[in-house]
């Protein structure tokens, strides 16, 4: 007998109720039960980070979380970043800095960086701007096979600087 559970979850501000098997991952639930196919599965063992979503404010590998664990939770996926047709500043920076090629890892990097920047990591403890080293360390949490990471690091830096109120977006632009 399948071990089924009722789940209530809010995704990008929209409530969903569904019944899932206990072992069903949050990633499969989002993708195949709720239609949020922007969340991608690259390894299903928590290394690549393509499936990263924001779960109650924290970046989480949705392949390592069961759907039932998201009962009552707020989930943000890549589909929730843009304001209507207008890309978010982070999404726009990814395009400006050529931070994506095939785009498969991109939703994971976007959600990782969005969660990090939302935690007010825009500046260091002493108010100094986010460094390239810090942006690189953040980006090292996920895998990208196409870009060589340079554009991703630049896009995160530019967004952090712009959000911190500086004019860093121009500073980080490609030459």
């Amino acid at each position, binding site marked *: 007998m399948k071990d089924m559970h009722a789940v209530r979850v809010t995704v990008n501000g929209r409530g969903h109720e569904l019944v899932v098997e206990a072992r069903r991952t949050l990633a499969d639930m989002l*993708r195949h039960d709720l239609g949020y196919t*922007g969340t991608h599965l*690259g390894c299903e063992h928590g290394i690549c980070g393509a499936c990263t979503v924001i779960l109650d404010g924290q970046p989480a590998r949705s392949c390592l979380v069961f759907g039932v664990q998201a009962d009552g939770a707020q989930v943000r996926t890549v*589909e929730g970043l843009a304001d209507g047709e207008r890309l978010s500043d982070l999404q726009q920076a990814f*395009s400006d800095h050529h931070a*994506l*090629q*095939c785009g498969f890892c991109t939703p994971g990097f*976007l959600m990782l960086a969005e969660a990090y920047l939302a935690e007010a990591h825009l500046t260091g403890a002493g108010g100094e701007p986010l460094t390239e080293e810090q942006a690189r360390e953040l980006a090292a949490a996920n895998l990208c096979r196409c870009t060589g990471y340079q554009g991703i690091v630049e896009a995160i830096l530019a967004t952090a600087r712009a959000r911190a109120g500086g004019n860093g977006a121009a500073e980080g632009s490609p030459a």
Partner: protein
Amino acid sequence: MSAIGARLPRKEDSRLLRGRGRFGDDVSAPGQLWARVVRSPCAHGLIRELDVTQAAKAPGIARVITSGDLPGGLAIPVRLTIPGADLGDHLQPVLAAGTVRYVGEPLAVVVGGDPYACEDAAELVDIDIAERPAVLDARVAPAQQVAAELAAGYGDTAAAFAAAAHVVSIELAIGRHSGVPLEPRCLLAVPDPRAGTLDIYGMTKVPVWNRDLLAGLLGMDETLIRVHAVDAGGGFGVRGEFYPEDFLIPWLSLALARPVKWAEDRAEHLVAVNHSRQQHHRIAAAFDADGRITALDDDIVHDNGAYCRTHGVAVPELTVAMLPGPYRVPAYRGRVRVVLTNKTPCGTYRAPGRFEGAAAREHLLDVAATRLGMDPVELRRRNLLTAAEMPYRRPITTLNTELVLDTGDYPALLAAAAREADRLGYRIGPVAPRAPRVSSGTGGRLRGFGLAMFVEKSGLGPQETADVTVSKSGAVHVYSGGTSLGQGIETVLAQIAADALGVDPRVVQVTAGDTAAQPFGAGSWASRSTVVGGSAVHLAATAVRERAVRLAARMLEAAEEDLDLADGFITVRGDQAARIALADVARAAEPARGYLRPGEPTGLSARRRFEVSRMTYPYGAHAAVVDVDPGTGQVRVLRYLVAYEVGRAINPMLVEGQLRGGVAQGIGGTLLEEFGYDEAGQPQAITFMEYRMPTAAEVPAVDVLLSQDAPAPGNPLGVMGAGEGGVSAVGAAVANAVRNALGLAGSVGQLPLTPARVRRLADASARSGATA
């Protein structure tokens, strides 16, 4: 202003950034079943029994098949055939029958309504295999394991070696690694029993070839099969070739008259998708007293894994054909023994044969520079072919084309690269390999610099076809036979079409890789899409422009030669008021509008074919600065420079992106990534914990010097390919830098340069230094 050469934002980005991409597993069909492939747990053995009884009875399982359920004798043919190589006995069956030859070989397929239930049932298949010894070392494999022996060359190498002032030889092994795109493979096959059609999602790279092969295997008319264009999460050579699953999933969907989806998981990807690269080189060069190469000889053992797949022996053939690289080599002999082993079969991976060959050749040159007491850059400069020698014909064929280096100024590029490396502070004094330098303040870490030159190939023909159509909204539609693998083909082809047609690239929509929209496409591989596919689009868009002007002349009652087409409008020169939108011309090209003459084709569209018999050869130099910790064996790449001649960059941002991404993959294959096997042939890299792809922490910012000084003479755009030059020479440049850091006299011996191997090299170097 021309759309060509602009750093335009990518057309692909908008959907991919919003999570609106359409990757294989994003597409589903009503009533869809899921498939799970059961794979061999043994490297080599005889199948005694495959009992699927329990699996077939498991809840929710619709069907379980083994080879006995399929038509007999099914094997996947070679796509890239090389004359003289008969590989008929070495092709992979779609399901193993009798013998298994590698861990991961498909044995059975379980189909059911739920993918989790299919995985459960797959474990109920009772596999009884009588294990046999596994052949794992290609160098000592018995003769019956040799699938082919290939050679390329010319001149009298024996005489040149006998007369040489210096002979330098090394051995270098290249590790087994591969493309490993971030999206695993996925296929969805949707049959329509009423219409007799079959729709396929997830075949990329060569969709028309795969469609035709599938049609033949299924006994169907090929036009009843439609391969749809989908996004692909990276290709790198491995994705989209015809694998066993490319037959099994469509066949099952027809047998069950239901849509069937298969989504590969990462563990099976790492044992199922084409591996690549594993070669052992014994390479030697003869020099005269001035350091000029008089002969080059390479004896290669190529580990091809258990079968010859769709690439046949193309990778070893490319290795020996491209080995002389950018140098003047009066006599050359390259031999390669293609050996079958009990490992995952091999195919192409970005810069196939060139990554391997460049590593061996360029590492040899650095060892030779030490031996001859010369600066490695000067040794290369002395031997490079010059602009005056172009075009330069090598008496070698590869991929059924003559090898004619078409254009370029290799010494100028080397000089520019060396200047740029110096300007950026890469080099730390003259290169003195026997005197290891300790990086200041880094706890005994050793700094090293390495440089390598290479020639790439691109633009493989024989043809590509493109259709360009203007619709009544004024939108321009391009239907290309290329496929979208992340390289930005939609953006590049839109820029080419916009330039030829005189419209804004934003109004151009590109459909790439749909076999119904473009049934004559040859696919995206071999750095061919911009060169061959782009030229086809250029021809088709130019033809549409000519037709638009002809029709507009009738509409405006003006002479064709007085008309201009720009920004989507046709204007009469000198008359601002007399203008007509391209959309209106598209309407005028419809039947019964009164503008078409008898015999003129309907619609504002054109189909053109670009044919080319030879490749075009881009080239470049890589330079690396590394830091080596002799205590832990860790190598860090601190700086990396790619200097690359691309003829003409359609979108420089995308070219730089290709080069940077290639460098990252090259660093992976040189330092981190390796498909290891234990003595029983069990794969040791089966998750991303063991198969270590570089992260942002291992890949530095990459400096790019993009050169557009040598337009390709063989295509109307003057373009060369850019897909592979970022990876071609990474093994060479990083190996040279590590050798330089450690002060080695000879070769590093083996890639990847894992910490354990580097420690051994450091220890050996320290010992020889102590006794010297």
